[in-house]
Structures are given as structure tokens and as C-alpha cells.
């Protein structure tokens, strides 16, 4: 953090930037600062404006309003070829008539650098493609092409590297491998990376800071763990992982919040509620599936006091190796998801069983009940 503040001269700053196409607004006026040297992810479903935002930083798209600056320099009106940023395109966009070495050397040559041989060789070494210098792009696999695209951008030592879903075309295993690779390269070269992705896992693994975008605006911005633990909107709660959302009525605001839902009372720490609370108002309570424990109704007495508890009946269970995922139908909040580690499996926990869900009250978060409770939930299914 201190290092970032020292070198704040190279931050990417978007101020009131927006993009409209005719009557369609792709990006709502947006303020965003990407600290120099950070790995920043723009996360969202397709059509949320994340790629448009990236293209406005690259200069490939003209901003309708607002400014883009890099450090102290306003680069809003600079054409792409004058901006000290480079892009790794979704489809790689390698030049098919040039071999790998010439693709990588392209940017250097355009800036009039004559002796590129050494730099190109070093860069190909960094992305582990030293033996492929004379190949044409169509002779490479998807993963190799992707690395050429990264090398072609990185060799220019841009102040910012923009990555537009660079791993989208790769299969799962290769994608995991390239995620680590990109992270390694970023740490090694220390350039600011702005990474656009619809894959929440990818964003959380790689980025220091994630901005979740929805409908052309940033819903929430923060470190991956912070976003996961403290979502401030239902969209973030549902889009990043899975959340159980239970609607209830606030009955007490003294000390911890107490909410009545489904015939019981649930508590949550006041500081974990992002919505304004008044006694008698509505509130959404959120709890992550892996934080919930499951007990058979016969064992309900053994549950420690002070924990939040909700009754229900198991309607579905699926065994996925490390854990078992249960769907529990509950009067409190419809179908609730529960992930149980497969350590000591209770054989009574089968579909049809009456159960009690209980969790540490401190793990509960509160959201404004005026939102769509399912926002962001379906987008995850689309993306996977």
C-alpha cells in the first residue's frame, strides 16, 4: 500500500467517464482510480460495460463524457497509438502475416527502435516461447497465441496493460495455468494490469482489487475477500459466489440488529449491515452456504445458544467430493443452499429430513430489502 502511494504518479484515473450509443447507455458516468502497479479486475456479466470501459482506457472507444488520465496527464483525446497503454485482445488479434517474433517486435518497430532482437528474445523467454519465434500465429495453439499476445503488449513496457477476457477462449485447465502465469508476470514486471472478465473465480484469484460492474455502473469495489464477505448489494452477493438471502422485519436496533423472519429471530452485527435500519423496516439477511451448519431436528438441543437458527426440510442433496451441497426448503427464505464439508457425514441428512440450519451470527450480513433479491444470480449460471 505504501509503495503504491509513493508512486501514485502513474495511477489510471477515470473521472465521470461514460459511453452512450444512440439511446443505449453502455457505461454510466463512472469514477474509478486504478493504483499504479496493482492488478485490477473489472468483473461483470456480458453487456455490463466492462469491455467498453477498458476500450475507453485504450482509446479504442471515444468517451461520451468524462476524462481518462494517466498520472497527471489527461489522455482523453489522445488516439490509441499515442497512449502508453497496450491491450491483450480477447481474440488475441495477432497479425497473421507476421511470425511470432515480428508480432512481438511490432510495437518496438513502430516507435523506431532498430535493434529489437535481444528484447524480443528476452520477452519470448519470459512467456516461454523461445523456440517458436519463426512460427506463424496459425501454427500455434490457443494458449501459445495467448502468450504471444501478452508478450507483444508487454515488450513495450506500457504504463498499463489492458486485458480483455484474455483467457476466455482457453479450456478450464489451461485457464487456471495461465491465471497463475499472468499473475507471475505481473509480479515480475510490476506493471498495472487492468483485467476484464466475467469469471468471478478468475477475478478473485488474480486481482488485488475487483470492481463488480452491472448495468453500466460499478456496484462495488474492493479486495476479493472483502467483496465476498461484505457484499453491499444483492447483485454482488449473488454474482460473487452464492448467497442465501432471507427477508425479514427489523424488531430491535439496540446493540445487534434483531430481525424476525419465518417465525424465528435472527441477529446480525450492526456494522455488517449496509442498509439503513429502523425498527419495523424490512431487511435482507445474507449468509454464505459454507458458513451454515446442518443438524438433524432431533439434535436441535445440542446447538450452542446465541447462534442464528432456521428450520427446514432437505429437498435435494448432491455429493461433490470435498463437500455435499444441500438445498433446504425453509419457511424463512425459500430454498436455502448449504455446503457441508464431508468430514463426519450424518446419514440421516437425506432429502425429506427435517433439519435445523444454524450459523454464527457474526457471519450474517444485511442488505437493503428494496432490491431485486435475485439480481446477479442468473448471470452466474450463464457464465458457467
Amino acid at each position: 500500500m505504501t509503495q503504491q502511494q509513493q508512486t501514485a504518479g502513474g495511477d489510471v484515473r477515470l473521472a465521470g467517464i461514460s459511453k452512450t450509443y444512440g439511446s443505449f447507455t453502455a457505461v454510466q458516468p463512472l469514477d474509478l482510480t486504478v493504483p499504479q502497479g496493482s492488478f485490477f479486475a473489472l468483473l461483470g456479466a456480458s453487456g455490463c460495460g466492462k469491455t467498453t470501459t477498458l476500450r475507453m482506457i485504450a482509446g479504442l472507444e471515444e468517451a461520451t463524457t468524462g476524462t481518462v488520465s494517466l498520472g497527471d496527464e489527461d489522455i482523453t483525446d489522445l488516439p490509441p497509438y499515442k497512449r502508453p497503454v497496450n491491450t491483450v485482445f480477447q481474440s488475441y488479434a495477432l497479425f497473421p502475416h507476421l511470425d511470432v517474433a515480428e508480432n512481438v517486435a511490432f510495437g518496438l518497430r513502430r516507435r523506431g527502435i532498430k535493434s529489437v532482437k535481444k528484447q524480443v528474445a528476452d520477452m519470448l523467454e519470459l512467456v516461454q516461447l523461445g523456440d517458436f519465434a519463426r512460427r506463424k500465429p496459425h501454427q500455434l495453439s490457443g494458449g501459445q497465441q495467448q502468450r504471444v499476445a501478452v508478450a507483444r503488449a508487454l515488450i513495450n513496457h506500457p504504463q498499463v496493460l489492458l486485458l480483455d477476457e484474455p483467457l476466455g477462449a482457453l479450456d478450464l485447465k489451461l485457464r487456471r495455468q495461465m491465471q497463475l502465469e499472468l499473475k507471475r508476470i505481473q509480479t515480475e514486471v510490476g506493471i498495472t494490469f487492468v483485467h476484464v472478465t466475467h469469471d468471478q473465480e478468475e477475478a478473485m484469484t488474480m486481482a488485488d482489487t475487483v470492481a463488480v460492474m452491472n448495468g453500466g455502473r460499478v456496484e462495488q469495489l474492493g479486495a476479493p475477500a472483502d467483496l465476498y464477505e461484505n457484499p453491499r448489494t444483492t447483485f454482488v452477493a449473488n454474482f460473487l459466489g452464492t448467497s442465501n438471502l432471507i427477508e425479514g422485519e427489523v424488531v430491535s436496533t439496540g446493540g445487534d440488529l434483531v430481525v424476525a423472519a419465518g417465525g424465528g429471530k435472527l441477529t446480525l452485527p450492526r456494522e455488517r449491515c449496509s442498509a439503513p435500519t429502523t425498527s419495523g423496516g424490512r431487511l435482507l439477511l445474507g449468509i454464505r452456504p459454507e458458513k451454515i451448519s446442518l443438524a438433524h431436528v432431533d439434535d436441535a438441543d445440542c446447538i450452542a445458544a446465541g447462534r442464528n437458527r432456521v428450520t427446514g426440510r432437505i429437498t435435494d442433496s448432491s455429493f461433490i467430493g470435498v463437500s455435499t451441497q444441500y438445498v433446504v426448503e425453509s419457511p424463512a427464505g425459500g430454498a436455502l443452499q448449504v455446503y457441508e464439508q464431508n468430514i463426519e457425514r450424518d446419514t440421516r441428512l437425506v432429502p425429506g429430513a427435517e433439519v435445523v440450519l444454524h450459523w454464527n451470527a457474526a457471519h450474517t450480513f444485511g442488505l437493503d430489502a428494496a432490491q431485486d433479491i435475485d439480481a446477479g444470480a442468473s448471470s452466474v449460471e450463464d457464465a458457467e
Partner: protein
Amino acid sequence: MSLTEAPPAPPSQPEELRLRKPSTRKRLVPYWLLLPGILWLLVFFALPLVYQASTSVQTGSLEQGFEVTWHFQTYVDALREYYPQFIRSLLYAGTATVLCLVLGYPLAYLIAFKAGRWRNLVLVLVIAPFFTSFLIRTLAWKTILADGGAVVDVLNTLHVLDVTSWLGWTESNRVLATPMAVVCGLTYNFLPFMILPLYTSLERIDGRLHEAAGDLYATPATTFRKVTFPLSMPGVVSGTLLTFIPASGDYVNAELLGSTDTKMVGSVIQSQFLRVLDYPTAAALSFILMAIVLLAVTFYIRRSGTEDLV
């Protein structure tokens, strides 16, 4: 059990595991598909070619009949007598090809990248002249370039004709019956053959490559020089071939728009065949033209590095 007993026979391979060779019928399918085209080429290309080749080494006259005498002198004589027409043909066809490229490239570029929803309309407009006969369109140029017509008047007023006359392209305030008229006609008639292949190869270029080049510090001009143009080379090569080859053998433009001083080799071949009735010379001229064009094209393709086209 005796030790000399023969080992049991290996179990016979099950039917499914044996590699099956494709049936003869299947293997012959490509040849059957080739057959109509091969027959067509044989009857209408190979046979006439052989026939003309034999004609070119015959001697005799129309009254006494022609005989194969392996008289190769015809080739030498033909070349000696008609070399100006050969040079003119190549010069006019070459100039027209360059003009077609210069006029056609921007238009093809526009259709491929900038026309948007007008793309199909513009393409139809490019092909539209084909709805009228080649002869009628060429005759129309006779009117366009006529003495005292609007075009000549304008060129005269602007003193363009003074320059072109000085260069030998036009003569004393006339355009019709000059080399310029012939080149204009050739350019006009073959322009679509340049535009269409250019458009096809430009249209195939991924627009994101332009973005990538811009992103990598290439100005729009450099992007064109280093990315767009190299990637459109297949179109440039096939466009120039489709223009140059027919243009060098053309005689209609020279006949209708030119004079005796602008005759191209096509005119000579035509008159040798149909008016002078000197078949051997006409055939020899045809073969010389073919050889020259083949050599030029081979050299050109080698130079432009697109061997994979042929």
C-alpha cells in the same frame, strides 16, 4: 500333456477390429466429380490449343490448303513485323492495370470497411455495368470522348490536353483515336475485375487487427502500410492478373476508341484470322502473346511472394 504339442492358434480377429479400406467406389468419387470439367477443358481448351499450335507451323495458302511444314520462321517474322503492337499491348494493359488498382483500391477499401449498410448497394453498382453489353459500353465511350464533347472541352480549358499531347498520349486537342482513349476504355471495362477480388480480400481482414496495430503505436497510415496492404496482397495479385491478362489480349477498345496507330496485338490477330486469312501468322502471334503473358505473370507472382495463390 506332451511338450511338443502345438500352441493353440491365435484367436481370429473379430470382424469389427479389422481396418477396412475405403471401397473402390468411394475412392473414385473425386474423379467422377472432376470429369465434366476435365472434358470441357479437353474439348474447348486443350484440343483447340493443339490445333492452333499445329496451324502456327503450317505453310500454304487458303486456295491450296495448309500443310504442317514445321515452319518456325513464321514466329520470327510475326515478332519482327508486329513487335510495336506487342509493346503497345503490354504498355496499354499495364497502364490500365495500374489505373484500375489506383481507382479500385480506395473504392474496395470503402466498401469493405466504411460502407456499412450501403455495402451491398455499392457492390451492385460496381457490377451494374455488366447488365449492358461490353460493346455498347465501349461505344458509349466514343460519345463521351468525342471531339467537341464536354469531356474534351473541359480538359482543353484546363490545358490538360496540352500536357497529354506533349507526352504523346493525345493528339492536338483530340482524345478519341489516341492512346489515352484506349487506356481509358481498358481501365473502365476491367475495373470491376480489379475491385471485386480486392474487396473480397479486404473484407476478410479482421477489423480487430487495425485496433491492435493502433494499440501498438502504429498511426493509421502505418497500419495501412504494415497490416492492411500486406494482408490484401492476394486481392491485389488476383485483381491485377484478372485485369492485365484479358486487357493485354483485348482488341475491342483499340478498335473502337483508337486509330491505326494505337492497334494492339489483339487487333492484329483478329485481322490476320478474319480479314487477311493468314492463319499461321495469326496462330503464331497468339502463342507469342500467351508466352509473354505467362512469363510476365510468373515473374510477377514470384516477386509478390504469393505463390500459394496459384
